[in-house]
């Protein structure tokens, strides 16, 4: 009985306690469902109520006093010498100086700002919060070292002054003192609010880039974009760093594209993208971007050069010739004009009766190698192309050229190597297809070119190659069928139309 009573009480209490504790859990499981409201067409409009109350405004200082003092200053009476300044209270003096400096900064009268603020002591400038204007003015009047000192003084007084930290970092970057800049900008990034963080990060990235710390620079640029995603220039800088880091081709291309998308008409971005595509063997894209750039900057020599090379690599002789002709007359340096003349002559199969150009730099070497190849000086060409391969910017193009100069076995090895490289893979498929055509391997050639088309469906070069290949292997009907499967805009291109006519003739003849 004793035992039963104790057990009964104990279990009863446990049950009660469990119910109490579980009640909350049970209630929390049955969460209130969302309120449902149906919206139907109303017959009458209801005025929306809104409360608008003004924010509390600061009370202004005596504006007339300030205006008069500034007027007199403009008339040649130095503000700090005026009696109104001398008799003013500390707060009023501060307000007067602030008003004057604000006016002068708006007018970009930096020398005058310096002159006025030099009349104050350093502690006055700091106390009256004019040290920043002082530092900016020094920087803008090219007094770099003094400006650096002024920023440093300000930061000692207030180590949370973001703008000062950023500006100091930028100045140090400019003065090529990258390590110091990096330290300063790191601090600036830590204290900067979101609105300024982007700039600080971008400046930090630049200092890292200049020290060849490319990975960190890339991270800093990317981080900067988190705060300022619409800054086309930063996207471009990031893309350029990624190029140096040999990041994934698709990713780098996308980064360039973002810079271009954000700022339509961004010639620099278009140019660099074109250059990158050329480097990575996407000649079609290089031409597209270069043409866009050229439309905006028709006299830009670099753009012409990119176009010239792209057309040449694509074996579009007439268009290439146009560009080389322009360069032959418009290039800045004499040697470059000479080189352009030689290449143009080669394209037009004319005899060269002007002097040779100096082989200075990779471009000249590449041109020489091409000329040698054209003149069947295969050994010389191979040697030069192999030399050029040492440069990362020309590696893949040189590799591509070497394909035609090497024996079959070596070609295969080069091709498979190219297939694993970080390049525009459609081009390597095209090269493979060309190789297979030479070896009379029809199926393999079609397979390769199909892959190229899959990677880049809008590339007319691949389309034409496939048509020609089908033609070469007398698959005329298949060629026609392929053409009819193309999009309308491609079907209506002149080159395709010509192919259609030719095929019709062949089919009719047979």
């Amino acid at each position: 009985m004793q035992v039963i009573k104790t057990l009964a009480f104990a279990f009863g209490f446990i049950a009660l306690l469990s119910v109490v504790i579980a009640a909350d859990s049970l209630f929390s499981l049955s969460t209130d469902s969302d309120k449902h409201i149906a919206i139907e067409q109303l017959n009458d409009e209801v005025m929306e109520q809104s409360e608008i109350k003004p924010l509390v405004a600061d009370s202004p200082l005596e504006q007339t006093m300030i205006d008069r003092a500034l007027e007199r200053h403009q008339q040649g009476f130095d503000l700090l010498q005026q009696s109104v300044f001398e008799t003013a209270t500390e707060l009023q003096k501060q307000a007067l100086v602030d008003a004057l400096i604000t006016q002068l900064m708006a007018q970009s009268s930096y020398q005058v700002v310096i002159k006025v603020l030099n009349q104050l002591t350093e502690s006055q400038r700091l106390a009256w919060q004019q040290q920043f204007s002082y530092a900016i003015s020094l920087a803008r009047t090219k007094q770099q070292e003094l400006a650096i000192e002024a920023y440093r003084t300000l930061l000692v007084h207030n180590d949370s002054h973001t703008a000062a930290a950023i500006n100091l970092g930028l100045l140090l970057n400019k003065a090529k003192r990258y390590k110091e800049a990096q330290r300063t900008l790191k601090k600036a990034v830590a204290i900067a609010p979101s609105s300024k963080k982007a700039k600080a990060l971008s400046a930090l990235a630049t200092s890292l880039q200049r020290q060849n710390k490319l990975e960190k620079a890339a991270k800093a640029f990317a981080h900067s974009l988190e705060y300022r995603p619409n800054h086309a220039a930063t996207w471009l800088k990031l893309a350029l760093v990624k190029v140096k880091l040999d990041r994934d081709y698709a990713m780098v291309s996308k980064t360039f594209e973002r810079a271009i998308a954000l700022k339509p008409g961004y010639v620099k971005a278009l140019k660099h993208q074109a250059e990158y595509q050329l480097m990575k063997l996407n000649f079609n894209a290089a031409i597209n971007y270069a043409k866009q750039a050229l439309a905006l900057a028709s006299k830009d020599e670099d753009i012409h050069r990119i176009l010239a090379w792209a057309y040449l690599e694509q074996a579009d002789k007439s268009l290439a010739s146009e560009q080389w002709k322009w360069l032959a007359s418009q290039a800045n340096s004499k040697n470059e004009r000479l080189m352009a003349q030689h290449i143009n002559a080669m394209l037009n199969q004319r005899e060269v009766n002007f002097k040779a150009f100096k082989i200075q730099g990779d471009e000249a070497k590449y041109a020489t190698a091409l000329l040698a190849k054209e003149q069947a000086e295969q050994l010389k060409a191979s040697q030069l192309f192999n030399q050029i391969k040492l440069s990362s910017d020309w590696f893949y193009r040189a590799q591509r050229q070497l394909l035609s100069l090497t024996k079959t076995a070596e070609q295969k090895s080069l091709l498979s190597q190219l297939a694993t490289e970080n390049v525009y893979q459609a081009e390597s498929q095209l090269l493979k297809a060309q190789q297979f055509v030479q070896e009379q391997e029809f199926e393999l050639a079609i397979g390769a070119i199909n892959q190229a088309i899959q990677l880049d469906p809008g590339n007319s070069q691949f389309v034409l190659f496939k048509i020609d290949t089908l033609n070469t292997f007398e698959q005329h009907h298949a060629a026609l069928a392929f053409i009819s499967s193309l999009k309308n805009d491609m079907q209506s291109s002149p080159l395709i139309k010509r192919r259609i006519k030719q095929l019709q003739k062949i089919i009719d003849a047979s």
Partner: protein
Amino acid sequence: MWKQKFSWLFRFELLLVFTAIAIFSYFQQAREQSATLLKPVQSYQLALRMQFNSADKDVNISTFVPHSNERQQVLTDTSQSNYLAQSLFPSYNGLVSRWSGTAASDSIDYKAQIQTSGYQFSLSDSLEVTDIDQQKWQNYLQASEHIQVGHPEIAALWQQIQPDDNNNVVKVLEAIYQYTADIESIPFKGTTDALTALRLGAASCNGKSRLFVALARHNGIPARLVGGLVLNEGSKKTSHQWLEVNIENQWIPFDPTNHYFAQLPAHYLELYRGDKSLFTHTANIDFDYQFTINKNLISPALYQTSQVDDTRFDIARLLQELHLPAQTAAVFLVLPFCALLITVFRNLFGLKSFGIFMPMLVGSACAFVGLTVGLMGFVMIVVIAFIGQIALHGLNLLKIPRLAAIITLVNAATFSLLLLLDQFSTIEIGLLSLFPVIIITFIADKLYSLVEQRSWMELSQTMAGSAVSIILCYLCISSATLQGIFVLYPEAYLLVLAAQVYMGRWTGLRLTELVRFKQVLQNTTEQNDGAVVGINKRNRDFVASLNSREDLLTAADKLATKALLQKHNIPVPSTIAAFNNTNDLTELEQHLNTHREFVIKPNAGSQGKGILVIRDKSADGFVSANGKTVSKAEITKLIKDTIGGKYSQLEKSDTAYIEPLIHQHLSLNNIAPYGLCDIRVVVIKKQVVSAMLRIPTLGSSGKANLHQGALGAAINLKTGEIERCLCQGQVITHHPDSNAQVTGVVLPFWSKIVEMSQACSEALGLGYMGVDICLDEYLGPLVLELNGRPGLEIQNINKSGLMAQFQPSEPADTAFSTAQAKLA
């Protein structure tokens, strides 16, 4: 007397219960809304911490703080800043809070308890895009810096994505939603305007929302941005942006980032409307902030006093009038229930804990800081106090000053820890550093004693019991259901009081005693049901009822007891000397010179503490019972400590006295020559009801203490024969060390022992007592001491309940034993 007491209490309990029921019934009609208020609801605790570092200049920081509207309710909010003053004002975009002042650095803490609800809108398919009053809706149709409504690229995009029927509101919104939801989500931290989102084909929440708004406005549908927080538990620094579109004068929410179409879930908190920044502040102040969000269940009854009938007693309103925060009020309301909980744990379950009501205090603190943090804080403070005990133990300080010193140490250590936690984490244990620290310091004292005694089992049990109690108290204190019950039905306190009174007179066995006395209970028959006595019964029906306070004090005073017994011609060991204060120590030398063998004892000691047995003299001093050499200086120190109260169970100064060494009777010495055996006789109302012989072993260091490994031998009350012997719960027949047979031994002078025990009961007047008797070689049985609260382990030794042998000789006694049976 018993009958009256019993029925009076029972009537009082019934009165409480009926009063509660009556109040409940009377007010039931007025409480139509109570049922809804009783159900706990989900709410969010939002904490915003802002910090800055400004080189001592004027600082202004503004932010939008949560405000109440049809979808969300701010139940409470507080703001704290050391140097900046706060001002609140409603603006067109939301409720702005601004803090201003001059300070080099500071942190601002804003906290709010918020309840939100989710909305889902069903848009009729027949809704059409109509011409609307351009002037009225101008703000929500025009272009802005970041929402480039008129831009050709926006128009071109719309051309691309517009549905076939671009007059149908739902189709238009679906097209816009589809496009903006599908563009890549990149968590840009800066501002992404609509055009950037379009050009990049990627955006964060603000870019997507702006693009959505631009496209909606392009179609003549008023749209606005909304900023706020997604209330996911944890810490975060990011806010969120979504938008609302006005259809038929109703603002409908959309969130293309998290894929909500015409819907806003309950865990979205609106802070502002419009294309605004959440924070604006003075430049160059290294501003930083963090949101911390916790989800919890609350009792709406604690917050919604306006819904309650004003004519009735409203505890929540009263507490709010006292400016008690809701969370504090919640703890306050449930504390009586927790006290009942502790009572039940102790008296029904037999759960041990450090401190009786300490778990309630720590549980309350845990309700503020969280269970894990609270338990960690509790363990940390116990550890610090324990280390303090160890550090100060060697200084031999008196108890109270030692505890005071430890409190100081614990306070300093806790303060340092608070500073550290404040610097490096968001954990707040500030509230834990209140009075529980003091209570916990006392607990550490008890903990230290247990460790000193190597009572590992008891230590583990007590620690486990403490942890369970704290957790259960925490669960009850944080139970929104319970809070609601006590707010809405304060008459429930009467029920709690009735339960407490009932527990106060409940003398049944504890759950742990069912295990402890399992063997004895198995022997129980219907006739002797109720014979087993548990602690509850012992304390209430025996000690409290049969022993007066004065008699208990006399029993605790050994010298006074001896004097009393001597007066009644009951043999006791003689007293050689007594030392009340240090002046008396001048005589010590003389006694030490005179006696070779003696025993020094504290007058108010217990459990053998402070007793020194000297067997012989040696060249260096004296030889103790365990063979160690003891110098005169050590003896002097022991006596001084005793006088100082070190061994006193009354925690005050005491008397040390010297007795002659007792030489044990041969019959017992043959069994156990390792120390003095003693016979414990339990007497109830002058009847001897139980007896046992406690036999020292080598393991018990010569002490006749069952907990320390002594044997317990059950004695037949009629014959004095040892019937059964236990060693650590195991039945044995022979002494484990001497191998002498124990069972079957008949104690000499048994009838005299029984008479002496009864005589002691007559002499002192204790109705329930334990008489400790030893057998001297020459003098025979001597009473060593009387115990006013004898333990109950004797029942296990005898395998029989205490009341089994009780023979009622008076009607009152019959009632007594019957009442015991009934109550049991």
